[in-house]
């Protein structure tokens, strides 16, 4: 091994073991740097969008120019220079969308393969007979590379495609639902996304259909100085069920990168949507905090119909800054919202994450379980809102926020807001803060378990209540990720 390579390998090892940090050499087509009306027209033209879509984008853009940055999160960073980034980057080979997976640039397929996401359906099925298949939409920088199992899903009437395709093929659904849960004026990051979003996934599950496999999107940011602005829209019609997962990684670049996404979920009467995230964006340099992803995401679900249910589960281990509050609007009577979260920060990461549960309908129920783990010099905040509107008779919420500290230089904060405007509501809140003790570590080590392994064991125990809500396929990966994220957290 050449000396330089050796050094790189060593540095990578020291940087907290981020093994998704590789960069794929690929010829890429970019929009000119910076943001203005022409860029938005460029993106819209690239995607051959209908006029109404372009109009929406421009409306959002001009609103965005006037909007202030949200300032209430407990995160510190230098202001974003919006003109110093690229808003569109796509592999050249994708210029004319390949017809089949065999026409996709092997380099792209290899990238996903390396990340453990095979995109060829037969490969996915081979050797995993006992595992149910997972349909994947793979998004690379600004574009969807491939969506698997589309045909299989079509038999059930399920639409699973990139959002760009959905705009072409199902404009009526996109027009009706996009922006109905997260309006473009919601906040500055969401507004930017509404103007420049490039791709993402679209899911529609028709009435009475129980989706036979897990659906997932795998987001990859590859290019330097490029923002990723994906948008996901999930619609579960009456009495349907779908479980959806998303995973995210990025190479290690020294420059900070912006990721401003929107996820909208709509659940009609008796429908249930389970949305799981394992977020492992590059967290920045372990020792200096340089680089990393700004993860500014607006995720919101609308329980539109009676007895509908939306459940968010997230494992947040990556990103330099996480700003994210997957929320539920409980509009339908008897509807339910759930939020299960594990947020791990290490090195110089900052996370401000939590949820909003807005109770509007009668007998609505919500449940919040948040587990924050801080190590190194990081800062980890839970921020949550539980709001009971006057008409929400017998609304119920139960919240648990637990924080675990590793070492003496990190911070954990819990900021719960509770607002009840109906006196029949029952709201419960529990919070704890604890530290991994020397006693616990020594006890494990005396039994032969190494310090790193002991920390992973203790943290996985701490987060178990949340991890068990992940689909089986993800749970094991998530446990490993927990261990990797905490490497180097104790000297």
């Amino acid at each position, binding site marked *: 091994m050449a000396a330089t390579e050796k050094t790189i390998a060593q540095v990578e090892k020291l940087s907290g073991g981020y093994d998704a940090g590789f960069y794929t050499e690929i010829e890429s087509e970019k929009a000119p740097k910076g943001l203005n009306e022409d860029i938005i027209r460029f993106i819209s033209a690239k995607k051959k969008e209908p006029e109404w879509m372009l109009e929406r984008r421009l409306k959002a853009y001009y609103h965005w120019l006037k909007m202030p940055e949200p300032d209430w999160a407990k995160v510190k960073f230098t202001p974003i220079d919006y003109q110093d980034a690229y808003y569109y980057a796509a592999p050249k080979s994708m210029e004319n969308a390949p017809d089949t997976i065999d026409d996709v640039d092997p380099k792209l397929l290899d990238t996903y393969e390396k990340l453990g996401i095979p995109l060829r359906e037969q490969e996915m099925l081979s050797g995993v007979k006992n595992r149910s298949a997972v349909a994947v939409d793979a998004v690379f920088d600004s574009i969807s590379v491939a969506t698997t199992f589309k045909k299989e899903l079509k038999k059930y009437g399920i639409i699973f495609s990139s959002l760009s395709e959905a705009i072409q093929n199902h404009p009526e659904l996109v027009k009706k639902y996009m922006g109905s849960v997260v309006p473009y004026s919601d906040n500055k990051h969401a507004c930017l996304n509404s103007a420049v979003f490039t791709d993402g996934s679209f899911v529609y599950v028709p009435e009475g259909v129980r989706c036979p496999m897990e659906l997932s999107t795998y987001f990859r940011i590859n290019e330097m100085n490029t923002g990723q602005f994906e948008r996901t829209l999930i619609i579960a019609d009456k009495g349907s069920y779908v479980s959806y997962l998303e995973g995210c990684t990025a190479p290690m670049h020294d420059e900070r990168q912006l990721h401003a996404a929107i996820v909208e979920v709509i659940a009609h009467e008796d429908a249930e949507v389970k949305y799981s995230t394992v977020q492992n964006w590059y967290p920045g340099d372990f020792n200096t905090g340089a680089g990393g992803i700004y993860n500014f995401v607006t995720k919101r679900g609308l329980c539109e119909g009676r007895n509908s249910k939306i459940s968010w589960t997230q494992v947040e281990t990556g990103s330099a800054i996480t700003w994210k509050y997957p929320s539920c609007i409980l509009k339908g009577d008897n509807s339910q919202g759930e939020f299960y979260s594990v947020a791990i920060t290490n090195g110089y990461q900052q996370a401000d994450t939590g949820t909003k549960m807005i109770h509007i309908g009668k007998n609505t129920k919500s449940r919040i379980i948040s587990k924050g783990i801080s190590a190194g010099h990081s800062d980890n905040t839970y921020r949550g809102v539980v709001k009971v509107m006057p008409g929400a008779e017998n609304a119920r919420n139960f919240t648990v926020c637990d924080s675990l500290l590793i070492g003496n230089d990190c911070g954990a904060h819990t900021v719960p807001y509770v607002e009840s405007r109906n006196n029949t509501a029952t709201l419960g809140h529990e919070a704890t803060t604890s530290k991994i003790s020397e006693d616990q570590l020594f006890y494990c080590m*005396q039994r032969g378990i190494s310090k790193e392994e002991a920390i992973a064991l*203790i943290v996985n125990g701490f987060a178990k209540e949340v991890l068990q809500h992940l689909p089986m396929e993800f749970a094991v990966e998530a446990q490993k990720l927990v261990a990797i994220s905490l490497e180097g957290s104790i000297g």
Partner: protein
Amino acid sequence: MININNLHACVETADGEAKEIIKGLNLEIKSGEVHAIMGPNGVGKSTLSYVLSGRDGYNVTDGSVELDGVDLLKLNPEERAALGVFLAFQYPVEIPGVNMNVFLKAAVNALRKQRGENELDALGMLKLIKGKSKELGISDDMMRRTVNVGFSGGEKKRNEILQMAMLEPKFCILDETDSGLDIDAIKVVADGVNKLRSPDRSFLVITHYQRLLDYIKPDIVHVMADGKIVKTGGPELALELEEKGYAEFLKAEEQEKAA
């Protein structure tokens, strides 16, 4: 088996100063022997158990400790565990959310890995746990709970003995295993220890009271005072201590030496 030679060790105090607790301790335990160390509070008995198992903050300033000729002091706690050092804690530690099964599997496999043996799969582990807990009369229910959380004093100590049985150490230190136990619980724990006695396993039993030694019969009894072993004898020494009390016993010893 274990050879401790002129051991001196310090503990870091709250103000960051090093305070010498072990002051020239000598001890040799041969294979298959059970030794007891008795002594009043604060003479360094628990410190000795931490020094031998390698806990952070307990620093050896002089002397040597060898297990079957291997210098223990150079090794970190998990390496010592792999060599066969086991400490039954005076206060077993709670680990919330971590299942007993998961913990035992992690420990057994960590040791197997260090020893270059194959790791056990879930089924193999289950068999091992079932077998050992049955031998020791421990209920399956305890295995489904999280490590030491909500365990009674007796359950915690039985859990220590179960771990000892699972990890099959060479050299076991029992740090005041009788503290906080009623007579019945002491019998159960002592029974467990007696089942584990074997010609290639040694024990160091640390206790205040002779009572435990009625059930775990030692070969040799040592009296510890001020960081050293001041007297060594047979089981009858424990009875003598019980009768006289530590203060009188130590005073008599001093007078004898002076004379």
